[in-house]
């Protein structure tokens, strides 16, 4: 299963959700497949679950989608125990596990040997964490996750991507500002400071 095909299958389900995205090639592929201001890219390795969970708690009426990676999850495992103990019903997590640090040349992560992210998540209290290994199973898990209430955690075992990555056209600072303005506009709230001089 290739991650790009999973992302293409996921994109039609994205309407007004806020999508938190990991870094690296996953971000580049998602930016190409589903370009929109409601995407928030690259909080740094390990930080995507905390940022997405905080966002989900702040906006409990809105679906928050997290697209994460094995390397990022493995870097801050204690985020899983927080997620298991304080779940957010509106948070939908997809972890694309290619068993490698793809951005640095494909060196193996621990999931290439013994580590099992869905099992780690379950042991941390994340109910219903599952692993899918083919595109049909991914499509069905994505449909179920995004169509229902309750936190979901889907690990998709994917191959290393082939060929050059797509180019990400929007820079990080601009992307963040667009995301904040999108949240402000769609939630009718103020996040950034306003000068009243």
């Amino acid at each position, binding site marked *: 299963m290739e991650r790009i095909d999973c992302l293409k299958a996921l994109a039609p389900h994205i309407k007004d959700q806020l999508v938190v995205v990991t870094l690296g090639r996953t971000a580049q592929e998602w930016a190409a497949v589903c370009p929109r201001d409601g995407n928030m890219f690259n*909080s740094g390795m390990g*930080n995507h679950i905390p940022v997405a969970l905080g966002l*989900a708690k702040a906006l409990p009426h809105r679906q928050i989608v997290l697209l994460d990676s094995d390397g990022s999850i493995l870097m801050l495992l204690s985020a899983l125990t927080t997620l298991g103990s304080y779940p957010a019903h509106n948070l939908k997590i997809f972890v694309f596990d290619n068993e490698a640090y793809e951005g640095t040349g494909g060196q193996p992560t621990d999931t290439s040997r013994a580590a099992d992210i869905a099992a780690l998540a379950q042991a941390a209290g994340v109910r219903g964490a599952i692993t899918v290994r083919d595109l049909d199973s991914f499509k069905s898990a994505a449909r179920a996750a995004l169509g229902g209430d309750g936190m979901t955690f889907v690990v998709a075992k994917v191959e290393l991507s082939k060929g050059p990555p797509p180019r990400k056209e929007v820079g990080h600072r601009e992307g963040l500002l667009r995301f904040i303005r999108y949240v402000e506009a769609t939630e009718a709230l103020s996040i950034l400071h306003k000068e009243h001089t």
Partner: protein
Amino acid sequence: MTESVANEVIEGLKEAGVKFASFLPDSWLQPIYFRLLDDPHFITIPVSNEGVGVGLCCGAWLGGLKAVMIMENTGIRMACDQLARLGISVGLPCFMIIPYRGDIGDKLTYAVAHGQTMIPVLESLRIPYHVVRKENRIRQSIRRCLTTVSVTNYHVAMIMGAEVCVENL
């Protein structure tokens, strides 16, 4: 810490509009943690790693909530990566309340390292900080710190000195 000081912190946070809190507890600020857990005004998520708490607060800010991360000053070292990445690289802020463990008069040897490293680490991360040493300045300090968070979109730390954290120093 007296209940009176804990009350100043809790009420100061409410007055300043803070709705989201995360913490990894320390002994000096004990009463604050139970107050947060018991008070429905706050969405409170305890963590087992300070970096996770910083990330949670940054995410909550992104969703329009004022947030606070409360942790021992050793947490600044633990959360160094999250503070640098989320604050400097990404642009998401976190307001922190931190007891000044290792402050002059702290009776525990293990706290010395926390006191000696706290200010240099904060300064290396370019995080503005304000040390509160009087109970009647706590609410004002919270308000000022959050104003600076808002104006700068960057982390700010309110450091609670030994005078407000420990009775009979």
